[in-house]
């Protein structure tokens, strides 16, 4: 547009176009450095962030669900069923589960979509202490984790499930697992992306081999190692 000349004012410059382009290019390039930068900033911010919890309402978590409604935990009716290729099928009440040896760990939770929550404090039971109640048969080589959120299931091989920091967690950050985090019990396997960490556990079945879980049927890797699967680090 022709601007009427203003005395003492040279031709205006198109800084607006420059700002627009710089913002678009800068923002788009952050696809390649944003996470690294954010992880560094978050390391500095997180001690302060504890005091600013109302301002950072998510604490880094995002809640992903696949069904129309989140499962509701009822202590009176909830059971953890251990079945499949076992010598002794077992059904544990919540209290029975809580009376098993308690384990605690602090580990980092990685989601395949790119977000990470550092230093999550989990408490729960180790896989070994649960499996020994049911005694897997020789032919059992994998575990099928069945969520109360149907039709969510996922699998681990027995070797994967025996990694030292795999846990069936009933507490997170000092409180009983919240509904959105999978109350009353979820699988925690920090070495793998979140979709393997099945929430709202209702049953664990021993099977002869691992099959494809919910997201694996939709193209995600079965062996969801953090940083070494799903297109990352390959």
């Amino acid at each position: 547009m022709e601007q009427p000349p203003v005395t003492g004012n040279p031709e205006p410059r198109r800084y607006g176009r420059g700002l627009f382009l710089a913002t678009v290019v800068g923002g788009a390039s952050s696809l390649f450095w944003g996470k690294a930068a954010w992880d560094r900033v978050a390391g500095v911010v997180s001690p302060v962030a504890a005091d600013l919890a109302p301002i950072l309402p998510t604490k880094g978590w995002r809640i992903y669900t696949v069904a129309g409604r989140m499962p509701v935990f009822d202590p009176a009716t909830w059971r953890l069923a251990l079945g499949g290729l076992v010598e002794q099928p077992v059904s544990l009440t919540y209290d029975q589960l809580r009376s098993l040896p308690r384990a605690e760990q602090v580990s980092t939770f990685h989601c395949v979509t790119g977000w990470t929550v550092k230093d999550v404090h989990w408490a729960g039971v180790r896989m070994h202490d649960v499996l020994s109640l049911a005694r897997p048969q020789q032919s059992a080589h994998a575990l099928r984790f069945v969520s109360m959120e149907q039709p969510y299931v996922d699998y681990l091989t027995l070797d994967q499930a025996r990694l030292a920091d795999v846990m069936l967690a009933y507490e997170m950050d000092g409180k009983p697992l919240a509904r959105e985090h999978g109350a009353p019990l979820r699988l925690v396997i920090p070495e793998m992306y979140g979709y393997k960490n099945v929430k709202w556990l209702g049953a664990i079945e021993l099977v002869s081999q691992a099959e494809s879980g919910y997201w694996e049927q939709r193209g995600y890797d079965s062996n969801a190692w953090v940083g070494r699967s799903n297109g990352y680090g390959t």
Partner: protein
Amino acid sequence: MKRFSRVERLLHWLNALGFFALLATGLVLYLPSLSVLVSRRQLVQSLHFWIGVAWLAALAAVLLLGGRRLLATARELEAFDRDDLRWLRGGKAPQGRFNAGQKVNAALTAAFTVLFGVSGLLLWFGEQDTRVRFASTVILHDGLMYVSLVLVAGHLYLALVHPATRHALRGMTLGDVSTEWAARHHAKWKPQ
């Protein structure tokens, strides 16, 4: 006197409508407390995506429809003269139809629209295809949301609350502003 044409106002209000619809559905996906309340993530996710697509398509349609007149507005918005730079540094300087702050806001808003669109599409298609999956997409999309909230909060304050500037709302709703207000805030503005 006339400040905003019909097509300029249409573009503004479509953008506002789309922004708040996306903010509402996006927050349900983002905030754990809201996702517990609403629960139907798959439905909200589809809504969010398709509102986003409709929003970008509507904006593109208005840009095409507005043609040369909107192009002239864009030229006006991108041009910064010495007075604008002085104004940005906090000095008193006469302003045109848009003050320098509005010009900065316009450039950022346009850039954010592009970036929201790109990162949103990457999130949607990245769920199915590792080739378009980046670890930082979600950080970009969220970061844009946080910065946009700050910009929108400032914008709403100036448009609705601040006594000296809130008269401008009339320009964006009815199209015109008082000559006396225009002379005070936009001294260099000479309507065609």
